């Protein structure tokens, strides 16, 4: 771990966005714009059953009646939905069975991103579903997981091969009417990951999805559905990057998690979409709905996110604590540098008895960045003995950035205990000088201090990702101190 730390520091001398390249690959692209025909076309491309198309159409019709939400502390330029391509798929033979069927360009791309898909080079202990633009390119370790009864595949495959599971759980946590972006996603989602952990199984490796946007003028709308059956456990990781482009690109994903009695899901995200350049040009609009339900008693859902990328982030990974004694956690580090904006937080809905939630949010603002925490803790009347602890810290670098906190607390049960703590601090000149005096440069000092500040959250990540996240934090703050 300590050695990694050194490597981290060494690599930081050249810290621009490292993932901004474009893969030159033939891509199947449908015409720009959104209409019922486009929804049908997407469904047809994916050779979906009728029920899936019906779901999409219902969502699309509903979406047409909706308006984009305006309550977030964000300045979002007008998005022209007729100017977006809603489906773009790298050309390859249908459903690659073996690795030799996958286009070498794609393998090279994921190699470059540090996600080797080849049998020899696979990340040990991590099964990956690699998604480029609208489709899943390859899912590793499928067979060995299948031996345990674990289903880990692309969403499209799940629709074909496990329709009853998909039908049972799809939109059971985030209904198609939920919100503007989730509804849009329900109409046009292209691919994503599907995961089912059967009763009593502890998934022996980390499961992960790596999302890559490649094609230009394209939106990415993926859908992830994760079901942990009784007494099961899985740790799930999500990473994402995109090329550097001058235009903004829309990413509107939906993630749903269901935990049955005694099950536990740990969901970690390292979000590193292209944040735009120093003047705020380009970058991804990351408008994502993530929600889990602790359906069974004694179940647990834990969200950990490190958000360093995207021009604008709008995201509230939430937990519905329905089972008695269920536990919800949210650990977040969100960085906004240059002209990045983030409005992120969580909702903890306590329904069951003795439900418990923990929220730790660490915002870091630099440059002209605007960083908001928005969180809701809601305790319903029957949630006897509910407990929540929230801690929202903001760290400011420089004097042109902003940090904002919007906590909402609604309690309908008198036995509930809800705690909220908030702090705002600035990196002190004296802290930096202290590091300088020990031979540590100012950039590295900021990296150390910021990583120290975020440690509580970073420690929640699986180790490989923790190292990655530390690097990211420092890189995204590069040049933020004059």
């Amino acid at each position: 771990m300590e050695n990694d730390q050194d490597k981290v520091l060494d690599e930081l001398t050249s810290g621009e966005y490292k993932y901004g390249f474009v893969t030159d690959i033939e891509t199947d692209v449908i015409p720009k714009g959104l209409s019922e025909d486009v929804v049908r076309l997407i469904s047809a491309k994916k050779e979906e059953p009728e029920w899936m198309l019906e779901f999409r159409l219902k969502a699309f019709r509903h979406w047409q009646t909706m308006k984009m939400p305006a309550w977030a502390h964000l300045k979002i330029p007008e998005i022209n939905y007729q100017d977006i391509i809603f489906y773009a798929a790298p050309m390859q033979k249908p459903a690659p069975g073996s690795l030799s069927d996958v286009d070498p360009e794609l393998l090279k791309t994921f190699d470059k991103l540090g996600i080797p898909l080849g049998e020899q080079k696979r990340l040990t202990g991590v099964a990956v579903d690699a998604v480029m633009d609208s489709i899943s390119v390859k899912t590793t370790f499928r067979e060995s997981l299948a031996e345990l009864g674990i289903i880990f595949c692309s969403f499209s495959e799940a629709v074909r091969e496990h329709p009853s599971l998909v039908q049972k759980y799809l939109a059971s946590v985030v209904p198609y009417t939920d919100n503007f972006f989730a509804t849009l996603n329900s109409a046009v989602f292209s691919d994503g990951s599907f995961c089912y952990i059967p009763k009593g199984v502890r998934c022996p490796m980390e499961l992960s999805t790596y999302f890559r946007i490649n094609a230009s003028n394209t939106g990415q709308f993926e859908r992830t559905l994760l079901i942990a059956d009784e007494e099961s456990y899985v740790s799930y990781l999500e990473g994402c990057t995109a090329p550097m482009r001058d235009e903004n690109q829309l990413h509107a994903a939906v993630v749903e998690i269901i935990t049955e009695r005694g099950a536990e899901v740990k969901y970690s995200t390292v979000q590193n979409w292209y944040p735009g350049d120093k003047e705020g040009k380009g970058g991804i609009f990351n408008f994502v709905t993530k929600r889990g339900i602790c359906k069974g008693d004694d179940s647990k859902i834990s969200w950990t996110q490190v958000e360093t990328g995207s021009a604008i982030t709008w995201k509230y990974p939430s937990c519905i604590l329905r089972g008695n004694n269920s536990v919800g956690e949210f650990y977040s580090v969100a960085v906004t540098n240059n002209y990045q904006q983030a409005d992120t937080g969580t909702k903890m809905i306590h329904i069951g008895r003795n439900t418990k939630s923990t929220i730790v949010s660490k915002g870091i603002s630099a440059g002209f960045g605007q960083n908001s925490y928005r969180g809701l803790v809601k305790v319903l009347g029957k949630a006897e003995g509910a407990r929540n602890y929230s801690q929202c810290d903001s760290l400011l670098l420089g004097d042109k950035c902003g940090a904002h906190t919007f906590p909402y607390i609604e309690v309908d049960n008198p036995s509930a205990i809800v705690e909220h703590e908030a702090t705002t601090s600035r990196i002190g000149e004296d802290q930096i000088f202290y590091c300088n005096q020990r031979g540590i440069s100012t950039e590295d000092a900021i990296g150390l201090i910021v990583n120290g500040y975020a440690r509580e959250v970073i420690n929640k990540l699986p180790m490989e990702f923790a190292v990655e996240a530390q690097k990211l934090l420092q890189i995204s703050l590069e040049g933020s101190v004059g």
Partner: protein
Amino acid sequence: MKSEFLLQIKELKATIDNKEILKGLNLEVKPGEIHAIMGPNGSGKSTLANVLTGRDIATVTHGSVTFEGKDLLVMSPEERAREGIFLSFQYPIEIPGVSMVNFMKTAINEQRKHRGLEPLSASEFLRQMREKKELVEIDSALTNRSVNEGFSGGEKKKNEIFQMAMLEPRLALLDETDSGLDIDALRIVANGVNKIRRTDTSVIVITHYQRLLDYIVPDYVHVMYDGRIVRTAGPELALELEERGYDWIRKEADVNEETWTTDRK
């Protein structure tokens, strides 16, 4: 040509907020020497430490400072540190969440990189940590905590000396290291300094009081007054100051100043 002096300060003038604090200070330190700088509040002792370590609150307006023959004033604070200048802070800073281990390892490897050396291996680093901890009688648990966070005043000072032991500087500046220490902590800190000192390490002890000099015996005692060194002698001067206070120095210096200006006329 290499200078016989480790540190050479000539006619140094420096201002803070346009107010002149150092008014033509001269000081020469050879390798291995211990110098004590004493003087009343406001005489410019801390400003001298700031100027030597490159803290930008003070602006140098005149004079030169060379360290091992190199111009110190053009170096950044971190370069000076890597060259071997160490400051034991009067008020050590807390850095929450950053472990002492991580902090120290980063600092040592930056210094090694500067000197063209490979980073220290984990086992060698831990061995040194253990060894140096014993040297300054620092509680093992402290180095597992965040930098100075929740340390008592004495622990912070001991931690400074511990860092000094780890970094093995060429020149150590101890800025009021004795302030706020009880007699036991003072003894530990002073013994630490003595044990760590190698023959070529020089130390500048900035202090109000003589008591630290009972343990760290200086080769020279300088008295600073009004931005200048007004008197230099052996360790006996510290005792004299302890007995007589600073007033007589003040008077003498003011008189000299008058005489000097009169002479000039």
